[in-house]
């Protein structure tokens, strides 16, 4: 019987990143994954036996560079079908706007010089803010108390970075930190396609509309991410997102991590107020001195630990973690290539014609209703493959979808699919006739399949009041928990989810730093 000193619950990207980092430091780590395959949101099921699996995440946007390098993912098989992916802001008339390079460094399409200049100025400003904030992603959130194990040097450097923006830009930063993205776009940009696209990107995966205050910072967070070594860029791995999951799993195993799939943890074993292992759903007990949970914080505390080991105020806060998923996932198998009125299929295609379209799609969700005209981000993976042939598949993140539909899940799913296909038909006439298989995952479906609370891929909404030292809530924002020996390392912790590994890596660093819980 092998023995482990560390158990990581959840073999998603954060769990794997955390395990690999700990293993490199000499820990004997065991990762327990409930699903049959590790990789969390980077994995998925196939629509039909002869089709490739459709992962929940379909693009790389925020893979943490420490994870990419530290886990040597490229050595372990990660390669790219596309890097620096272009985005096409689709127009229903075919008058598309194309954004090339990271966050639209270049524009092509019908847009005048003033429009280009305005975008360039805004983009430059936001990129400089994102650049200054990016290091935050790689630190343990500071505590306000003194002598709390803050990494003061790193924090000072970030502060200095913000001050180095210069007085005017620093002021702009303070003004814009909690602003809504819609106001910024209306102030600075005239082009509806561009406004719609940026508004969409800002609230992708969030439970906010573009008119909600605090939405700009989510866009900055997106810009602060890296893919394939470039800030604010997008990449598509060769073989799909599953390749990232596989590379991470291989890397972790190469580092000495034991990976057990199909192993659902039933509860955390607590003795003398210390976590000392886990008990699997089937009753098997595995002991270890350190238990790290990379699953959602609410489930960790309320289901695995149990309220009786926690204080009432703490349970109250855990209960109050907001995790409303607002995104549905659409998977289509198509007989042939769809035509989005001439748009390059090997780009990220976004349907969000203006700010109002995004805001109105969010409106319905607030009341548990399905939007009439959802907005979406579309990827056609086969368009990126050289030996393309046969059918196509379409993967789309469709917003917004209610996490608690009033009409009931089945009825809401049916309407969501119908409304989504209707929008698609406007942008790609005839696409309806190409569909051989379709699947739409509502937030509740995503929760059931991936275990993400509320179907939110951040496990806890990424919003200012749940960010940084408030993520998922103040008492556990530094990855440590009140139960000695139990740590958090999932997307519910700073800096949030996506196929990133940053939270897991940060947690591992914090555990290894020896700062007491």
């Amino acid at each position, binding site marked *: 019987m092998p023995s482990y000193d560390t158990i990581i619950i959840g073999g998603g990207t954060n769990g794997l990143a955390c395990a690999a980092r700990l293993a490199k430091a000499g820990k004997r780590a065991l990762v327990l994954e409930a699903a049959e395959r590790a990789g969390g949101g980077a994995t998925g099921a196939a629509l039909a036996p002869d089709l490739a699996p459709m992962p929940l995440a379909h693009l790389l946007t925020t893979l943490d560079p420490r994870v990419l390098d530290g886990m040597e993912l490229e050595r372990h098989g990660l390669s790219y079908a596309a890097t620096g992916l272009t985005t096409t802001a689709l127009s229903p008339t075919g008058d598309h706007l194309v954004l090339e390079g990271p966050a639209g460094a270049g524009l092509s399409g019908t847009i005048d010089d003033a429009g280009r200049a305005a975008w360039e100025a805004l983009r430059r400003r936001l990129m400089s803010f994102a650049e200054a904030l990016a290091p935050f992603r790689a630190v343990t959130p500071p505590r306000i*108390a003194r002598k709390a194990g803050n990494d003061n040097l790193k924090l000072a450097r970030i502060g200095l970075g913000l001050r180095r923006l210069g*007085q005017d830009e620093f002021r702009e930063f303070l003004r814009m*930190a*909690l602003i809504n993205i819609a106001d910024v776009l209306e102030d600075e940009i005239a082009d509806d396609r561009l406004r719609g696209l940026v508004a969409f990107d800002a609230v992708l995966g969030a439970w*906010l509309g573009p008119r909600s205050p*605090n939405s700009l910072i989510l866009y900055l967070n997106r810009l602060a991410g890296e893919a394939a070594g470039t800030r604010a860029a997008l990449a598509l791995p060769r073989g799909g997102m599953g390749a990232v999951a596989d590379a991470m799993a291989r890397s972790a195993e190469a580092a000495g991590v034991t990976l057990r799939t199909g192993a659902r943890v039933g509860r955390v074993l607590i003795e003398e107020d210390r976590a000392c292992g886990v008990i699997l759903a089937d009753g098997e007990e595995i002991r270890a001195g350190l238990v790290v949970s990379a699953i959602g914080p609410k489930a960790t505390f309320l289901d695995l630990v149990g309220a009786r080991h926690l204080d009432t105020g703490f349970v109250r806060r855990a209960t109050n973690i907001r995790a409303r998923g607002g995104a549905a996932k659409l998977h289509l198998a198509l007989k042939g290539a769809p035509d989005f009125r001439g748009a390059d299929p090997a780009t990220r295609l976004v349907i969000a014609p203006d700010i109002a379209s995004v805001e109105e799609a969010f409106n319905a969700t607030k009341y548990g209703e399905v939007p009439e005209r959802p907005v979406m981000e579309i990827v056609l993976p086969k368009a990126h493959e050289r030996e393309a042939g046969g059918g196509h598949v379409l993967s789309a993140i469709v917003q917004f979808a209610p996490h608690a539909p009033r009409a009931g899940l089945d009825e809401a799913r049916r309407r969501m699919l119908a409304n989504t296909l209707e929008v698609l038909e406007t942008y790609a006439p005839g696409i309806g006739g190409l569909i051989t298989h379709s699947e739409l995952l509502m937030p509740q479906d995503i929760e059931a399949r991936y275990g993400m609370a509320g179907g939110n891929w951040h496990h806890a909404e990424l919003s200012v*009041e749940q960010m940084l030292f*408030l993520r998922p809530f103040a008492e556990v924002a530094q990855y440590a928990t009140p139960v000695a020996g139990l740590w958090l390392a999932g997307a519910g912790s700073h800096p949030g989810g996506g196929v990133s590994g940053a939270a897991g890596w940060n947690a591992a660093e914090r555990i290894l730093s020896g700062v007491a819980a």
Partner: protein
Amino acid sequence: MSYDAAIIGAGHNGLVAACYLARAGLKVVVVEKNDWIGGAAVSRELYPGFTYSNCSYVCSLFRPEIMRDLELPKHGLQVLPYEGGAVFTRDGGYLATFRDHEANRRELMRHSPRDAEAYDRYSRDVMRHCRFIRPLLLRTPPDPATFRPRDIAELAWLGRKVGEMSEGQICDMIRFWTMSISDFLDEYFESPVIKAYLAVSAIIGTALGPMSPGSAYVLLHHYMGDVDGNVGAWGFARGGMGAITQALTASLRAAGGEVRTGAGVEKVLVANGRATGLRLEGGEEIAARRVLSNMDVKRTFLKHVDTAELPPAFVKRVETFKSRGSSGKLNIALDAAPHFPALPDGAPMLKGDLHFTDSVERMERAYDDWKAGHFSRDPFQDTMIPTMIDPTMAPPGKHFMSCFIQYAPPKIEGRDWTDADRDAFGQTVIDQIAEYSPGFKDRILHMEVRTPRELEAEVGLTDGNIFQGELTFDQLLFNRPVPGYAQYKTPIRDLWLCGSSAHPGGGVMGAPGRNAASEILRDLRAKTEMRQAYAVV
């Protein structure tokens, strides 16, 4: 004839600033475009025998330090606390509120025993935040982007204030400031109507919905006032809201200041980058050593100052300053008190605020209409009958009713309001009240309907925003109204802002006027008897 200070606009903040300057010995004139004094704090007889508080309608935020400094009670100001109120529910019931803690608790218990107790916890939590923020109202915000000793000292003071709290409370406060009131209330309450009632203060006057992040802070903005030390309480000014500006005017005149009505300003005169006086609409020029504008920042700089005198970056920020109106108003003279069958006979609720929106969702949907450029089909209203408390405002047995309505956009689908739009808006409101008060329409003697268009035309509030600028973080504290210009100074020397566009923002509070005067007197090193904010004990 030359003045030490000319103040544009005889609203409450302009008058407060004028009073402080006059009392410090400056020769002061206030010029007002309307033929009456008061700005948005007015009492007007729009129907014979009836006094209308036709803009602002309740009093709580006005800083007691200012009332005392300027001896407003001596000059006739009386603030009357009011009691109670009710939210009518669609099922024919209601949720009432009471000043008496026990009565209030029992009322909440009718809707949810758990919420009745949660309310105490909620009140204490909000009060903790109020205790932190109140002392900030009468202080000039520091500029965090400079290294001036004064700004650093003020930041350090702020840091110490924060440091007086525990880590947990600081986190709670940051969370509270950034979240939506809807989410915040969900953490305490289960009853939809209780949540709807409590969400009111978080949306009044704003272009936010109860589900918008940042709305919880707005709640604080409405809670930090007090009536005689009773924090969070509201009252009426006896004789209508004009009583405040009338008392200020009397105080100003007693200090030797002048007020000129019917004197619209055409332009702020600027020479060599300094304000030197005003030119009135008739062409008359008034020379002044300095000019204070009680107009909002957009109106001041985009309409009355030559933008060539201003840095382009500043102009851009003023142009993009958000002051979207979100509210309208109905002012109604009633032949008799309205009857609400849902209420028990003789119930005291009519002495307070009446609401007809029984869920947060209905409020948010009303906001969705605003976002789409319509007035709300099912609007939220904060309706009061001040004559239930104040006998001076209407003939005996008759009543004045003030209905504050959200949401009403500054433009309808991008175009200006028409009279037909306005009438339809008024009808929507009347229909809503009549749903709960049969026969209401028959009691109306006279009615004034005000949309953002009328508010802008009469009071001069750009886009009809009652706070002279929205209360979101990009426009609060050191960001208000423009980063780098939050200390009442403007890019033009000797031109100052003293209205609600400046920190700490809108409401009949008087703080911006007082703080602007404080900055001017500080520059002059003049002696002043200005009181510091009362300590929070």
